[in-house]
């Protein structure tokens, strides 16, 4: 059977003259620039018995760094990290990095998150971002998506936990670990911004 070796139909198309609305090239959500001050937040900790809130600036008064990870308990790009993150949180926690997960997905209930992550042995705060307010302030788009901040809430790194371009999971280049190791060694991080393929943050509006 002869198959079209070119592609399944190349096409050239022309748009109609009608102009209904414009789309802005600035539609990409804004996120803090590397080196700028990341927004502070106070959010309830779903894994604390009393739900006691966690405040970023207070965390940074006790530890030099905070790795803030937008999280989901349903996204296939996040789930494989559930077995990795507690170990990273413990390892780097001893060196001054507080791991913090934030769940902004409106369709994942508090109980669902608690049940899933308690079972996964999460040993760091998992915060509820009701109404995706903090996700909007950070411009967080995906799960997983990491913002690493240092003294004065300075944004040091924004991007992936690891390079999952070859498949969902915790494999690939361990980007965040590489960044943390460099910073803790007093060196420049190998990268400061990376793509972060994952699931869209399920915001209250749209999606």
């Amino acid at each position, binding site marked *: 059977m002869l198959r079209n070796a070119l592609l399944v139909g190349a096409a050239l198309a022309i748009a109609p003259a009608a102009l209904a*609305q414009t789309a802005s090239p600035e539609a990409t959500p804004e996120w803090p620039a590397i080196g700028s001050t990341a927004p502070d937040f106070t959010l309830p900790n779903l894994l604390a018995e009393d739900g006691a809130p966690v405040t970023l600036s207070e965390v940074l008064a006790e530890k030099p760094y905070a790795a803030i990870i937008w999280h989901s308990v349903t996204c296939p790009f996040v789930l494989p990290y559930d077995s990795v993150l507690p170990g990273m949180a413990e390892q780097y926690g001893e060196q001054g990095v507080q791991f913090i997960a934030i769940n902004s997905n409106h369709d994942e209930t508090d109980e669902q998150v608690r049940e899933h992550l308690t079972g996964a042995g999460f040993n760091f705060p998992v915060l509820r971002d009701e109404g995706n307010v903090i996700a909007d302030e950070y411009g967080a788009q995906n799960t997983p998506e990491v913002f690493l901040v240092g003294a004065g809430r300075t944004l040091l790194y924004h991007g992936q936990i690891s390079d999952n371009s070859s498949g969902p999971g915790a494999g690939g280049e361990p980007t965040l670990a590489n960044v943390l190791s460099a910073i803790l060694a007093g060196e420049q991080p190998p990268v400061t911004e990376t793509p972060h393929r994952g699931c869209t943050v399920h915001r209250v509006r749209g999606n």
Partner: protein
Amino acid sequence: MRPLALALVLAAASSGAAAQDAASPELTRLSADGLRAELEARRGQIVVLNMWATWCGPCVEEFPHLVAFGHEATPEAVTVMAISSDYDQDLESQVHPFLREQQPPFPVFLQQENDTVFYPAVDPEWRGSYPHTVIYNAQGEIAARLGQFHSPAELHAAVAAARLPEGR
């Protein structure tokens, strides 16, 4: 008409035969440099580039609208192309069946390199939210970025806006 444009017109003309064959759509792997060359070759045209994957629910929802846009628009001065970020293990089970069903009247490529290398060629500001559609104007500049769209009309409007002289 430039040679490349002519080649694409011929390819479009031959796509009907491919559809009649009901053959598995041919997916060409595209590198970042390859994409840059594709875009450069289309300078002077509006280009609608859709990044999608079958693992992305909203991408699967919007793809029929992209196909409809491709069918509605007449073949001149605008190029539609789609690039899948699917994984190799999903090609036979997910991607090819989906494309057989959709029969897109435009070329569909497969992202060849990892995101860190490939994404900047698509859009330096894109960080990985799917779907992501970029509309390049005739100068090869990004005129619009769209998240999930819900009708061909949204694309038509964005393309029409991209045709406007800068500043209007």
